[in-house]
């Protein structure tokens, strides 16, 4: 999850002007998303009408591809940028609304399994990335940023920890570029591997949620496989996100003890500040659905609102991935990232297969 410059959080400006400034970019996201949906429906319609056997390519892929083409081949006018940056807002709103598709019992079962695997994944990822970074002679704080980004929640985790461990802007840029580049690769690689080894929807969703770093990419990688896999990927990724504060706090204390970062005063306040609030929103909606607060039609409406929010998100994921910018960041952190991510993907796949034998996911 990259940082979003929602107008509400930006500097002093008339709120109405700020909201108006979002409209062009949001319309662009919507246009890309709708075009993606139209392409999916058109291909499906054509192949059905002509009795052609063709795999269903989800709108998710088309939205990302169209976004990538526009973002990399055309210089998007600055007027669109504030609205494009809202993709993270739509992602989080979509996750909260996705809570309507889980009753609490599902969350307790799947979330419990996910949480257990998430603990193992975080520990394993931190160790792996640290070992690889040291082997390649990367700077210590860059190693930490890469480790946190790959263990917890990608770009957000890097940004959250950058301030806490007082890392350089350059290190943060390296780490973010590596995580975003790998996120783009995972969108293609994960669904292909998942289908090749015949993972079930649940197993694949769990794997994507554990191994793909950025929440937007994890959501997209899950949805590219199937609707159910997307749901499970979001739940698993949400469990990972929920732990960000603890990981960042650990690193902040480590660097403060070395005298290279500010000491954390109130640890509870620090944890609350870093805690992703959308996790709470997700649980509130799920609780309301579990208590029968919404009827069946209303639950379907909430689920569809979540899909619309994700549609805008996926368009934004494609638009903001700029390969030229990513390639400027150098090779070494990317090599460490690739090696680390491949090992983490293998580790988490092993965890999922193991968990599947115990719980039949």
């Amino acid at each position, binding site marked *: 999850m990259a940082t979003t410059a*929602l107008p509400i959080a930006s500097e002093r400006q008339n709120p109405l002007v700020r909201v108006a400034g979002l409209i062009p970019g949001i319309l662009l996201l919507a246009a890309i998303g709708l075009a993606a949906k139209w392409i999916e429906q058109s291909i499906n319609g054509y192949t059905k009408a002509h009795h052609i056997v063709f795999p269903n390519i989800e709108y998710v892929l088309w939205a990302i591809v169209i976004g990538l083409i526009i973002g990399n081949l055309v210089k998007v006018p600055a007027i669109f940028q504030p609205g494009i940056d809202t993709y993270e807002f739509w992602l989080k709103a979509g996750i*909260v609304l996705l809570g309507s598709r889980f009753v609490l019992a599902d969350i307790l079962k799947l979330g419990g399994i996910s949480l257990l695997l998430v603990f193992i994944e975080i520990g394993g990822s931190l160790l792996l990335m640290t070992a690889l970074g040291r082997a390649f002679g990367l700077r210590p704080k860059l190693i930490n940023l890469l480790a946190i980004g790959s263990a917890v929640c990608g770009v957000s985790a890097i*940004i959250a920890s950058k301030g806490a461990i007082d890392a350089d802007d350059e290190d943060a840029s390296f780490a973010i570029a590596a995580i975003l580049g790998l996120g783009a690769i995972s969108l293609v690689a994960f669904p292909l591997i998942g289908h090749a080894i015949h993972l079930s929807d649940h197993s694949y969703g769990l794997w994507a949620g554990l191994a793909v770093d950025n929440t937007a990419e994890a959501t997209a990688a899950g949805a590219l496989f199937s609707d159910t896999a997307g749901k499970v990927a979001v739940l698993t990724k949400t469990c990972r996100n929920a732990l960000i504060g603890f990981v960042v706090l650990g690193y902040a204390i480590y660097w403060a003890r070395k005298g290279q970062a500010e000491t954390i005063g109130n640890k509870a306040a620090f944890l609350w*500040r870093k805690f992703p*609030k*959308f996790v709470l929103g997700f649980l509130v909606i799920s609780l309301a659905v579990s208590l029968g*607060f919404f009827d069946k039609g209303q639950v379907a409406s909430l689920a569809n609102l979540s899909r619309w929010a994700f549609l805008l998100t996926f368009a934004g994921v494609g638009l903001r991935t700029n390969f030229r910018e990513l390639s400027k960041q150098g090779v070494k952190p990317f090599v460490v990232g690739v090696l680390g991510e491949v090992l983490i993907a293998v580790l988490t796949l092993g965890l999922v297969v193991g968990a599947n034998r115990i719980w039949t996911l």
Partner: protein
Amino acid sequence: MSDNQKVDTELASKHGLRLSTDAWAVWVALLLAVLVRVGVLQHISW
């Protein structure tokens, strides 16, 4: 979960309306849920 969170608390105290992306997303989603519940938003299709 981002830079916005850093400004979250300070902004919330100084300028009541300023929230992080995270918090805005939650409030907007909850508002949509309430609108669906009371029937203002109905039959949202996909």
